[in-house]
């Protein structure tokens, strides 16, 4: 668990900080951050990650485009992805899962929910 390398992608510095602290509480301390999908893809080219947590609404490259990119790439097509977003409309959730997201959390969330979802995703892949 402690060795899991996580990439947290969110354009909000506040949310990145909250996610990183929640991950630390859950026992995951190897976390890197990216400000949007484009930045995340650049970081994934030079570093390897075991898990991705991503927001949906971001400038430059949004979360859905980022997820589609990962799922169509040979290197990252099976990396576990957890989407953490304010978007709670049913159609959005369906669209995200169909695009390849493994699990979905609606903001605001608690550290316990984040931990639970990561564990569920890891157990299912």
């Amino acid at each position, binding site marked *: 668990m402690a060795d899991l390398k996580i990439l947290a992608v969110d354009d909000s510095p506040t949310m990145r*900080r*909250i996610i990183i602290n929640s991950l630390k509480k859950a026992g995951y301390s190897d976390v890197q951050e990216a400000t949007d999908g484009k930045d995340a893809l650049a970081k994934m080219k030079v570093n390897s990650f075991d898990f991705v947590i991503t927001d*949906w609404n971001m*400038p430059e490259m*949004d979360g859905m485009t980022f997820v589609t990119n990962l799922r169509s790439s040979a290197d990252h097509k099976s990396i576990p992805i957890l989407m953490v977003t304010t*978007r709670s409309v049913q159609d959005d*959730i369906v669209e995200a899962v169909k695009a390849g997201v493994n699990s979905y*959390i*609606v903001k605001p969330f*608690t550290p316990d929910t984040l931990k639970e979802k990561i564990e569920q995703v890891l157990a299912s892949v």
Partner: protein
Amino acid sequence: MSGNETKDVYSGQFSSKLRVELEQLTGSINDIMKNMRKMQNPILESSEQLPVANEQLDKITAQTEQATHKMLDMVEQIIEHQEQMTILSDEFGKFLKRSRSKDRDVFIEKVKRINEMSSISQNNAFVIMDALQFQDITSQQIQHASSLLEDIGVRLQHLLAAFDGKELSDDIVLAKKKDRAYDPNADLYDGKDQNEVDNIVNQVVKS
């Protein structure tokens, strides 16, 4: 009166009626134009005020974010101090277990109580941190409001261009709009319950 003379009389009456109608129409158009010219200045002023309103909204977002980060600094410090306190009290507890003091058990209980209180404080710090997610959600709501104001601004610019008999090019219109990423339905309290979200996810996965 011959047929042609009758025609001339009717034609003359018709042209004078038409003339009166046209004069009234011209008068109405002139009145409309006067009123539109009167409207032009307030529209121009409103259109100039909109970017100021948007700047204020951006300032609110930036300053709320700054204040939130100050609070996060403090919360992180509290969490770190609580972790250190737990380590220290654990060491103290181990020391007490080795001690032969007659009050040993009383102090071991006190150390346990300190650890319990420390754990509650740490959880409370995380509750404060969770609540600070409001900043991301309200900033998306502000982004939405700013985007609507920019839309109004563009429409006013179209109207002002029309007053001058011009048409606004798409480049100018697009330049006036900032690239904003937000969820128009972002809400701190009205989001779906996580159980509902999980059910939707499970249904899609099963299908």
